[in-house]
């Protein structure tokens, strides 16, 4: 089953009195356990598409089906719960809660899913270990480097064991070496935890790593490139 299916999706924004077409006639299937990279020039609709897939925005037309569910019909609370259980987010600016430690940042989504305390503790420690930050569990974001912050953000995104992680320009604020290590980490996580990653990115390193590449132009899909057919057989 495809974790994300978009059918005839369109989205317009209103800027003052002007209607701006953000997306039009989007038909797309995101394959399971893949690195899918959405790219395109600025204003092509990458972030809008990512927002729709991430269920933090609603289309004006068409259908968005995530994890087999038609998310458009959900109430705001139901959609919040759905995101808490099925989706993870990695942001360009990391977006960690500054007043919480690395441990607490990773733990936060698990509190929203009401996971029992002991199970929660084990999950957080496992994830911090997986991203190589066991020794920085009690550090606050301000005490961490950019790469470390993004590692915490990745651990947080993976905490509720989502089917899909959405990453908006995850390497844009990192140097190329750190960016490469972050991409490598996400690839490792994707393979180990059988999770789909969808990126919006200009970064050639990210694009080079993509299994599937979606290219947008003027709010429409210009091309979809399925690079890794070998992974198709994966469950």
């Amino acid at each position: 089953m495809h974790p994300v299916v978009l059918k005839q999706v369109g989205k317009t924004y209103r800027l003052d009195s002007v209607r701006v077409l953000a997306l039009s006639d989007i038909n797309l299937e995101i394959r399971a356990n893949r690195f899918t990279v959405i790219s395109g020039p600025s204003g092509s609709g990458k972030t809008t598409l990512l927002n729709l897939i991430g269920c933090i925005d609603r289309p004006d037309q068409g259908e968005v089906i995530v994890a087999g569910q038609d998310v458009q019909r959900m109430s705001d609370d139901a959609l919040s719960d759905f995101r808490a259980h099925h989706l993870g987010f990695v942001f360009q600016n990391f977006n960690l809660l500054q007043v919480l430690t690395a441990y607490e940042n990773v733990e936060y989504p698990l509190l929203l899913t009401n996971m029992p305390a002991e199970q929660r503790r084990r999950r957080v420690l496992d994830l911090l270990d997986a991203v190589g930050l066991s020794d920085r569990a009690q550090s606050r974001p301000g005490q961490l480097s950019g790469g470390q912050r993004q590692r915490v953000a990745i651990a947080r995104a993976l905490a509720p064991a989502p089917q899909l992680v959405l990453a908006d320009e995850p390497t844009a604020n990192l140097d190329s070496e750190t960016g490469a290590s972050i991409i490598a980490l996400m690839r490792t996580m994707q393979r180990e935890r059988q999770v789909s990653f969808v990126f919006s990115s200009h970064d050639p390193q990210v694009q080079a790593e993509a299994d599937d590449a979606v290219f947008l132009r003027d709010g429409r899909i210009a091309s979809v490139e399925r690079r890794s057919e070998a992974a198709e057989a994966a469950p």
Partner: protein
Amino acid sequence: MRTLSLALRNLLRNRRRSVVTLLAMMVGLSAALIFGGYSGNSIYALQTGYVQMHGHLQIQRQGYFLYGSGNPAAYGIADYQRIIDIVKRDEVLAPMLTVVTPKLQLGGIAGNFAAGVSTNVLASGIVVDEQNAMRKWDDYGSMSYSFAFPLTGTDQDAVVIGTGVARKLQLCEPLKVANCRPIPKPSADAGAQAPDDIQALSALEASELPAANQTRIEMLAANVHGAPNVVGLNVVKAQNWGFKEFDDTVMVMHLAQAQRLIFGGAQAQVTAIQIQLRHTEQMASAKARLDQLLATTLKSEPLEILDFETLTPIYGQSVGFFHSVFGFIATLIGAIVLFTVGNTMSMAVVERTTEIGTLRAIGQRRSGIRRLFMLEGLLLGVIGAALGVLTGLLLANLINHSGLTWTPPGYVYAYPLRVRIWGDWGLIVESAAGLVVVAVVSAWWPANRASKLIIVEALRHV
């Protein structure tokens, strides 16, 4: 990690702003508490004074309070001793009572005819020891200037007068009244002569007295038959009653003497039976029991029960005044706190817009965002209230030990400035709770706005 912990850390994030907000709340609450403590103490002091003077309840003949105060003969209680005995022996009332005592109120003209002066007086005939016992009532530990009447063991013609009466009767010098300026003696033809019969009665009384008694006065009053009656009285002391209008007319004498003046050889009566209780809180149940007695055992008597608040309307007016001023001050402070906390929370929402978007994206419901900011407002309120109460108590203690005094309107001497906060748990709890409620209410609008932020716009916020 809980929402409470996150809220607390968010408050500590911008410490300077949080501290300024807390300071505003602390100053506001402590100011309200100090005024509340001051007015509370004033109300207790007023109540103590009235209860010492009038008792909590009075049994009077129906209509005396409204129509009969100038006519004790028509509105007297003849069988008063039997009524007092019934009240004292009643099983329900007895445990509540401190004093039950009769009183005869009368008006008349007191004259120092040797000096050629006279003045209207409002006299009270009392049982001295019982009245002095009433004046020891101090259920609230108030600073009281009440004094015992120095009539114990004196002759029946002994009286105490106000310093104002002494001044008018030109008795300041023989009575050694301080700060009492002698007035120029009016010329002999400045006023009308007393009627012949009055002068004759006065002469008769004067002839029976030791010569050259400089504190001797006469008092003229209408007796039970409507005829004028005069008695000679010996002023043993002039005392300052505090309130000038009262001090200028007051006279206190033995009950028997007052009864002799009004009733002569007829059956002696009183105008009131004063009942003082151990605690003011017992007033309702005591009144209910007395009403029951009036409807049964004392059914034949046309009596009514009046409480001290009815007898002294100025008490209720004073309480109302203090409450309205406190309400005004509390409203002002509430408005300041409302805008201060509201501003603090609004700024926090703006600064944390991206964070709100992030929390919503990872699955936090709108209600969770609203709860977080409301909790921050609640925490501000609770901490501000705690600091305000502590500061208020500290300042009250300093004021109470500062030796400051003030003179209430109409009074002739100063009272110590006292602020009663400790022990007035109602004031503390209600003021602190009010502050917390205002803080939470003022956080509601920003919290609601935060919860309704559109996620994608919040994430784009710079």
